[in-house]
């Protein structure tokens, strides 16, 4: 006899007795409420599958955003390291155009609180308490206003004074043959002469003032050799301004330039 026939015969004899049937029916009836309303068909968005898919999608989006920001931060750090070491000669025309558009976009994102932002196509800077100023060629500067500076500039800094000398200092920096991104680190007045001390942006300056290196696209203008000397000597650009008695505004009367930057 084949096994399948044996199986059919043996299984065929497996039947529920009447007692068992009654037991099953009465048990089932006891387990359900007296009036059962069969669930109506739920819309698709109520289904567990839809919930699982939605949760999964949300998790993916959050993960993606998280990874994106992490990669932006990491990429930014890497770029800082690269830019601080790279000479500015490698600044290509295409890169500069790109920077211009970025600068313009960033200028619009400056926070309106506690800031004095000025834009003349190429130069952006920001002044508020506990913050330094960035001057220089705007093509090489990105979003100074969005950087948080933890270090105060100098205790003696007079912000009212700084505001009035800001424009002439900025113009003076712009008129330099090869304007570098500068950090205005000190403003003081003595006998009617205002002294503004600026420091070209280097990796050390960025670190000291806790500046975001993205401020300075392409890093310093200094060549690696000059940069090394500058870091040894700590050269600065000091601009002296006097008040014009006729107009009442300040003008640059002299400047002591950092020998490694040139004028």
């Amino acid at each position: 006899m084949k096994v399948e026939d044996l199986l059919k015969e043996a299984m065929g004899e497996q039947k529920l007795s009447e007692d068992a049937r009654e037991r099953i029916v009465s048990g089932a009836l006891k387990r359900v409420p007296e009036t059962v309303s069969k669930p109506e068909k739920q819309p698709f968005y109520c289904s567990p599958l839809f919930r699982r898919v939605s949760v999964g999608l949300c998790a993916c989006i959050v993960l993606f955003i998280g990874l994106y920001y992490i990669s932006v931060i990491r990429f930014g750090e890497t770029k800082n390291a690269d830019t601080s070491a790279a000479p500015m000669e490698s600044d290509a025309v295409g890169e500069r155009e790109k920077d211009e558009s970025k600068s313009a976009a960033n200028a619009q994102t400056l926070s309106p609180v506690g800031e004095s932002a000025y834009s003349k196509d190429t130069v952006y800077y920001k002044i508020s308490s506990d913050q330094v100023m960035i001057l220089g060629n705007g093509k090489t500067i990105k979003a100074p206003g969005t950087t948080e500076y933890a270090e105060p500039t100098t205790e003696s800094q007079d912000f009212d004074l700084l505001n009035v000398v800001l424009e002439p200092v900025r113009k003076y920096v712009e008129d330099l043959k090869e304007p570098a991104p500068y950090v205005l680190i000190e403003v003081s007045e003595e006998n009617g002469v205002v002294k503004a001390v600026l420091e070209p942006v280097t990796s050390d300056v960025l670190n000291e003032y806790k500046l975001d290196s993205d401020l300075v696209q392409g890093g310093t203008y200094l060549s690696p050799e000059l940069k090394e000397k500058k870091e040894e000597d700590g050269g600065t650009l000091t601009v002296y301004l006097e008040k014009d008695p006729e107009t009442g505004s300040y003008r640059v009367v002299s400047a002591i330039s950092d020998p490694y930057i040139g004028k």
Partner: protein
Amino acid sequence: MNLSRQQQEEHIRRIMELYGDLLYRMSLSVVGNSSDAEDMVQDTLVTYLTEAPEFPDEAHEKQWLVKVVRNNSLMLVRKQKNRERILSEQSRVSTGKDADYGILDVLQTLPDKYRAVLVLFYVEEYSAEEIAKVLKKSVSAVKMRLKRGREMLAERYKERNQ
């Protein structure tokens, strides 16, 4: 749709009349003992009363019931920590005949996927196409399982009775 107690009873008595033995045997082939198989049939009836959708015809209803009883039985088996315990229970499948006891005992040693197709095909006389619908497998996969299950059953039965 609201069902009164009387309607509920009518429904499940009809189900038991039409498919009671089928559901019991399907469950028995998975769980391996009559008391658990009866419980699984009861669970299926409860599921039917609380969740069953509207069926276009009896064939769909039967198919749904077979799926539910099989799934319930598989879940029960998975919950058991030690499957051997099930096999050794006193309420083990037995008809009182040594040979019959032997074939069902051997059937319990087969993997679930072979047991289901063997019972549906040889006992319940489902076609391969119908089994494929119930198990959501292709017809060729069902035929392959039938072939292997049959061979395995014969081989093990032979070994046992040598």
